[in-house]
């Protein structure tokens, strides 16, 4: 079975399993929507507080914490049901597993974002920003790739330790602060000032570079992370 | 800011550096003595067990 076929098979398995039960997706979506409600009450203590420059921050904090929940859940499930052990017995290249799992996590994150962003604009954004949609989608995709790649690598490690759920945030959050800085900056500029590709060039290039560097790094080390 | 006030900050910065390094060094020095003591005790114990019985021990 070629690498590409293996990749598709593993990805299909993960997607089908989740779409059949949908419990992880539903929980993550509910979490994201609830978080937005909480943000409203957290930040509008002052009457008519102006949240224009908080939009990027609120959005990405929500996504990152939803991702942590999702990663914990999907890997815990794999480990408890011994799926990963079964997979490792097959003659599959470890790196293929990494890319398939990252792609699966990326797709879940995109689904959640597809639900969350419209609701977010309903709650927090006054003006019509249809023209800004394309830059925003590019930011979203670039940041998501970095978060999913590192998240998949670290979840693989943390799942095999004593304090599984608690370890992942501690490992992942410091590493993705740069992504957060670039993504929240770009997102806020888009929503608050209608920034276009020209203004966002530096941040977009940074995210691209981040993704490239860490995809290669994760690719190089995943063999060791997934173990014997 | 006058030189005296500046000097107070400078002095405290260097004092902090010295304090942290010295504390680190002495904490590890204490650990070293404890470990050396352990090594000595354990080596004596190992020799004692191998000595008289020459194989009658568990190892």
């Amino acid at each position, binding site marked *: 079975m070629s690498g590409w076929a293996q990749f598709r098979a593993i990805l299909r398995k993960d997607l089908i399993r989740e779409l059949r039960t949908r419990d992880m997706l539903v929980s993550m979506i509910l979490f994201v929507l609830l978080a937005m409600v909480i943000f409203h009450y957290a930040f509008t203590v002052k009457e008519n507080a102006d949240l224009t420059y908080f939009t990027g921050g609120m959005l990405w904090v929500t996504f990152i914490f939803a991702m942590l929940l999702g990663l914990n859940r999907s890997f815990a499930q794999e480990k408890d049901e011994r799926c990963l052990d079964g997979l490792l017995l097959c003659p599959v290249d470890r790196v293929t597993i990494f890319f398939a799992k990252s792609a699966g996590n990326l797709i879940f994150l995109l689904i959640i974002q597809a639900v969350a962003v419209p609701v977010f604009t309903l709650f927090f954004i006054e003006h019509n920003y249809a023209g800004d949609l394309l830059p925003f989608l590019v930011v979203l995709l670039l940041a998501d790739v970095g978060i999913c790649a590192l998240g998949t690598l670290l979840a693989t490690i943390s799942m095999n330790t004593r304090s599984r759920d608690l370890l992942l945030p501690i490992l992942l959050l410091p590493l993705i602060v740069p992504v957060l800085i670039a993504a929240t900056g770009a997102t806020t500029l888009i929503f608050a000032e209608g920034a276009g590709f020209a203004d966002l060039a530096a941040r977009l290039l940074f995210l691209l570079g981040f993704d490239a560097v860490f995809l290669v*790094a994760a690719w190089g080390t995943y063999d060791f992370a997934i173990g014997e | 800011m006058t030189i005296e006030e500046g000097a107070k900050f400078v002095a405290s910065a260097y004092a902090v550096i010295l304090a942290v390094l010295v504390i680190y060094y002495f904490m590890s020095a204490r650990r070293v003595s404890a470990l050396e003591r352990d*090594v000595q005790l354990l080596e004596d114990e190992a020799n004692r067990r191998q000595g008289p019985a020459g194989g009658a021990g568990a190892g």
Partner: protein
Amino acid sequence: MKKLVIAPALFAEAGICLIAGLLLGFWLAPVDASSMGYSQKIFYYHAPIAETALVAFGVSFVAAIAYLRSGDLKWDRLSYVSVRLGLLFSILVMLTGMIWGKAAWGTWWDWEPRLTTFLLVCFLYAAYWVLRSVVDEEQRRATYAAVFAIIAFIDVPVTFFATRFLPAGMHPTVITTGGTGMPGSMFVSFFISMVGMTLLLAALTRRDLAIEKLKDRVADLKTTIGG
């Protein structure tokens, strides 16, 4: 009983350089002409400590790669000893940086590139220790730690680069594109202190490695006796 005195020559050399650097900094180099004035003198140790912390993390990075390639636990030992020392120096960078900030700009904390990068570096490598503490099996612990040490070190320059997107801070740039921007006498003091700090790192590393070997010896003896 043999008394363990480790790397006395290295410590002595480090001490000489550091004291020389300090004296030069105070008596040879002029008082800084900018608004920082006298408090700039903190720089002669603060910047070398920062460089040394990064060197320590670099050593842990190389040692981690060496461990993954060879499986020899002595590389793992070097890696985590270096991380520990790097953390120690990073904490010192933050403490001295905060004191300097208070002296020069009146505030204990500012979200500017260097302080924030080192704060994040502290969190990163603290996570390294947490990871080590929750894996019981030796080879697996070394493997996971090595993977994380590699990823973490790559993230350090990335983080520094990213924090420059934040609004301009108040931290003076040491090395600009057109030379160091420091009069010669300042540079000499800074350079000697930097050599001293690096020697100190080498001495402490040697010492900590020897201590770890001693710990392993104790553990080995306990198993031989117990079994």
